[in-house]
């Protein structure tokens, strides 16, 4: 992969020069967390390059909370999203499988996907809830980006992940070839972050996650005390980069058959309830276990990849303070008891 170096001041000027051309979203710190904001002449210097993932997952740009699917939306703006981390890049593969690669294509997804340029960042200071290492993902991007930025001393190492990314740099003379010592700095830094993620997750083990296969039975899940704290708020679903469930609303305001897609949550008691009132998932345990089985089994079965990228948003956003890693470890132990 082609790598370049640019010093911080030059990069900021380079990005400043792009502000008028495209809508650029980048992570800006608010309180203790990072949120995507549209860059302007004032905030572009505040972009945070060396921390962790944003609060919002990447899916908000590819599959927004609410959008019309019929009649078709004609024009999608070209956007640039900076600060996407490795966990969110992994989610693209799930989203592609659901909305783009199957026999039935979502009318909007592919167009949004074509119109996005992704400039990812290395994750430098993972949160305590991060667990990418447990699901086989590195805290630094390896694929699915157009450009990746790794903060090093005084500047950035830029990895070029696609032709689109290369075109974006347009042979700008501010990008230099990288030196051996810069590569060493990059690798050393990445090694340290990997160690940090391992350290954070030393009490958890998802290496036997495939044992969740077949664990529909409520008995296993009823013994996990923490699940009782779930208030069915749906935060884990809405913040998850790979949760794709939606419902369709019918309206007649633009045409007779207007359809709008809106996120739904499998933790909501009414999610699978049919018109008759019957539901196949009547208890909280049925719903909670369904979400985990969907991530670690169903999606694997459907798309041959795990439906979890280890971003930890479902843990940090949980108002019931449920740590999914702990739940999985406990439920797998329950299975061994039987």
């Amino acid at each position, binding site marked *: 992969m082609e790598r370049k170096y640019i010093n911080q001041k030059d990069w900021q000027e380079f990005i400043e020069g792009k502000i008028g051309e495209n809508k650029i979203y980048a992570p800006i710190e608010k309180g203790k967390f990072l949120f995507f904001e549209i860059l302007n002449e004032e905030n572009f210097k505040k972009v945070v390059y060396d921390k962790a993932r944003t609060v919002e997952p990447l899916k908000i740009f590819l599959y927004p909370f609410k959008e019309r699917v019929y009649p078709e939306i004609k024009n999608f703006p070209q956007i640039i999203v900076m600060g996407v981390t490795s966990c969110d890049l992994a989610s693209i593969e799930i989203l592609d499988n659901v909305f783009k690669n199957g026999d039935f294509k979502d009318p909007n997804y592919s167009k949004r996907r074509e119109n996005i340029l992704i400039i990812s960042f290395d994750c430098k200071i993972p949160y305590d809830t991060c667990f990418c290492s447990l699901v086989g993902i590195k805290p630094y991007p390896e694929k699915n980006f157009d450009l990746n930025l790794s903060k090093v001393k005084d500047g950035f190492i830029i990895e070029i992940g696609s032709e689109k990314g290369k075109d974006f740099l347009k042979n700008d003379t501010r990008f230099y070839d990288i030196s051996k010592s810069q590569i060493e700095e990059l690798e050393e830094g990445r090694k340290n972050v990997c160690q940090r993620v391992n350290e954070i997750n030393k009490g958890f083990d998802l290496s036997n996650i495939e044992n969740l296969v*077949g664990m529909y039975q409520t008995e296993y899940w009823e013994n996990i005390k923490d699940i009782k704290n779930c208030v069915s708020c749906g935060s884990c679903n809405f913040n998850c980069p790979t949760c794709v469930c939606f419902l369709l609303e019918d309206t007649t305001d633009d045409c007779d058959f207007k359809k709008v897609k809106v996120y739904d949550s499998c933790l909501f008691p009414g999610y699978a309830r049919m018109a008759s009132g019957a539901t196949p*998932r009547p208890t909280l345990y049925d719903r909670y276990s369904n979400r985990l089985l969907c991530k670690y089994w169903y999606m694997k079965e459907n798309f041959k990849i795990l439906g979890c990228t280890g971003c930890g948003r479902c843990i940090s956003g949980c108002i019931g303070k449920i740590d999914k890693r702990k739940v999985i470890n406990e439920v797998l132990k329950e299975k061994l008891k039987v």
Partner: protein
Amino acid sequence: MGKNIYEPIKCEVIDNIKESPTINTIVLKPEKEFSFLAGQFASLTVPGIGEAPFTPSSSPFDKEKIEFTVMKTGKVTEKIHELKKGQIVGIRGPYGKPYPIEKFKDKEVLLVGGGVGLAPIRALFLTLVETYKDYKKIVFCCGARTPSDYIYKELIFDQWQKLCEKIPLSFRITVDKKDNNWKYMEGVVTCTLDNLNIEVKNSVSIVCGPPIMMKFTTLKLLEIGFSEENIYLSMERKMYCGVGHCRHCMIGELFVCKDGPVFAYQELKNKPNIWV
């Protein structure tokens, strides 16, 4: 760029027939041809109200019109019952896998339908009748709660029975509770499976009805000697997209919309809460 998956085919309502106190059959004329195979379903939109999945109950060979037999249960079905001739609705599909009739070849085919579950069975039955030479015989077991709850009364009690003289077909008809004029069996639909004159080892069974009926019918069929792969069930779940995106209809890792709605019992037997 292909057609938008959510684009419906507009259909004119040409009739809305009252079948029973809670069930109507709507007859639609699509503005362009809508082809389907028995067992597949379509998503039917009542403009501005909502959309719900239904399996057409008419013959797949009828290219002029399409019929859906619908029980009044919720918001959308209530509006379907109120549709007037000339109104426009939308359908999209067909979705899902049809009944695997190629596997029925040279077999004895046992159809078991209860209540509104006779709707998908009707489309299958009409298909089998068209191709009756492919099967050894057809045994059609029908059930409903009371005689007035029966749908397709004219067909079941008259027209279809006349076919028995021409093709290897027989009927077993029951109600849970009979009235004074009832001349068939009394008892839940499983009672039609007693003393069946079929060769179980060379038979397939197709079951559609309310969950409780499908459960006990399946258990009875297993008891009679049907193998799990020869019992076909039509599953119903909450559904929005119909194309495997929204994930509402999942039964374990299976999608009712894509992998079903017709499943062999073998595929479902270890799945959670299937009889809902």
